């Protein structure tokens, strides 16, 4: 489990992270979202025990980075956007080297297990320089897992991976969650975050601006509704206006009309809207609650935080 407690990190006069607090529980994937330079990498490096917080503390597996950063490092696996491998080494030597750095008592069986998981068994004795980008990233993940860390920190791990490799990588992360690891995924790939994360923490300009379950964030704000109608635009607009419904948009699509509105009191507003539409002679094909994509929610939250 990761617990970030009121962490601030300054580099000279620049504040990279300001009073950040959030939690990642075991068996949970939390996406740390934010634009470039928002403080995501700083947060992951503080949790990994590489950077000390200027203020506050980060607790990893009940150990404070301030009290014992080395013990924290031993409990974290870190994957960055660049595989960062010693390319003159073979995969076997590379993983053995890091296994020894992490005090793994019997590296052999663990390495065999990992390369099988990653589909790299056939290239175990090949030089890392000959690997493709995707294979290198898999080797980096194997390195991060070699000591079976309870905490996994993934900082833009899928950058430059092709769609097939990204899919494989995603499945791997989800399987690691099933092994009760706490996983922090720092990314600006909202699609990836939406697909696999349980919760989202949004950071902007070093400050955490929103935190919550992925579904909660997507449905945050006024609920929005979409009615699909067989009708003309003018009477529909007039009917909804008369019923006091704040229409966001009306557009023709595939020979039908789509009307969108939002409301804080859906039961009252939708009843009035439907009654007005039926009275105006419109035929209602469907009425649905619109779910925002995480991207829409993210953009709205970032915009709101900057106002």
């Amino acid at each position, binding site marked *: 489990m990761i617990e970030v407690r009121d962490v601030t990190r300054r*580099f000279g006069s620049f504040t990279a992270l300001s009073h950040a607090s959030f939690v990642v529980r075991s068996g949970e994937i939390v996406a740390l979202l934010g634009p470039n330079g928002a403080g995501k990498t700083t947060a992951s*490096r503080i949790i*990994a*025990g*590489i*950077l*000390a917080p200027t203020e506050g503390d980060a607790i990893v597996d009940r150990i404070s980075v301030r009290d014992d950063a*080395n*013990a924290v*490092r*031993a409990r*974290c696996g*870190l994957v*960055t956007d*660049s595989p*960062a*491998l*010693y*390319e*003159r*080494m073979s995969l076997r030597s590379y993983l053995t*080297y*890091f296994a*020894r*750095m*992490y*005090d793994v008592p019997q590296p052999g069986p663990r390495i065999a297990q990992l390369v099988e998981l990653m589909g790299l068994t056939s290239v175990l004795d090949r030089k890392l320089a000959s690997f493709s980008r995707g294979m290198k990233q898999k080797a*980096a993940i194997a*390195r991060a897992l070699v000591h079976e860390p309870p905490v996994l920190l993934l900082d833009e791990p899928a950058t430059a991976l092709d769609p097939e490799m990204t899919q494989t990588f995603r499945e791997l992360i989800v399987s690691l969650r099933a092994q009760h690891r706490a996983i922090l995924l720092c990314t600006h790939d909202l699609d990836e975050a939406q697909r696999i994360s349980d919760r989202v923490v949004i950071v902007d300009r070093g400050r955490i601006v929103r935190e919550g379950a992925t579904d909660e964030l997507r449905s945050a704000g006024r609920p929005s509704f979409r009615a699909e109608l067989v009708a003309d635009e003018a009477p529909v607009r007039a009917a909804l206006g008369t019923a006091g419904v704040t229409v966001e948009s009306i557009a023709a699509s595939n020979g039908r009309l789509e009307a969108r509105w939002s409301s804080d009191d859906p039961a009252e507003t939708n009843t009035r809207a439907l009654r007005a539409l039926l009275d105006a002679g419109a035929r209602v094909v469907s009425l649905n609650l619109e779910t925002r994509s995480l991207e829409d929610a993210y953009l709205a939250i970032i915009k709101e935080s900057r106002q």
Partner: protein
Amino acid sequence: MRKALLLARREIVEQYSDRGAIVRALIFVALPIALVQINRGTGRAQDGIILIFALQAALLPAATAINAAAGSFAAEKEAQTLVPLLAAPIRDIDIVAGKLLAVLAPAAGLSLVSLVAFDAASSAVYGADRVARVLGPATLYGLFALSVFLILTIGAWVMVVSARVGSQRTAQQIAGFVLAGMIVALSAIGGAIQNLAAVVVVGVVAAILISDLVALELARRLWNREEAVARL
């Protein structure tokens, strides 16, 4: 310390997995033998000249430390391989010690081989008795110790340079100035030995030792995780 040794071993294997590094090392071993062969005809070579050749045999291999140190630190920054290393449970002091050892051990080993090769070659050409008189055990140990101190100086100062620059090329270029300083120091020692000015020899050795201490302390401060990560 076990992790420092592990790190040093990996770095040494990495350095010498490059054929160019092996060729450079062989040149340094061959150079003193070549000097003796070139001066073969001058059977009456002065004792002072034998001592200067021995000094060159001991100290020239120290130059290999420049490339090794620049590659070890700046190249690792450039390739971003420092991040996984810094994320591993290894103390800052073990990282610095391991990297210094990776610079020191091969260059010192090369210096020893070069000195032994020179001793053998010069004994064959100038006569074993004469060479044994000029290069007694104390002199040979002294020359070897001097080369170790010089390698430490080079390694530590190049580490300091590497901490400040972003690329291996820049580190190597700046390290060239270190090499120039080393040549000046070598000339001073050579001149002092020839003129038997013991005070100057002691002065130069003392300067190298002070430089070692200053550079090692600077390197220790610059290569703690905080500093290293902040500069990535």
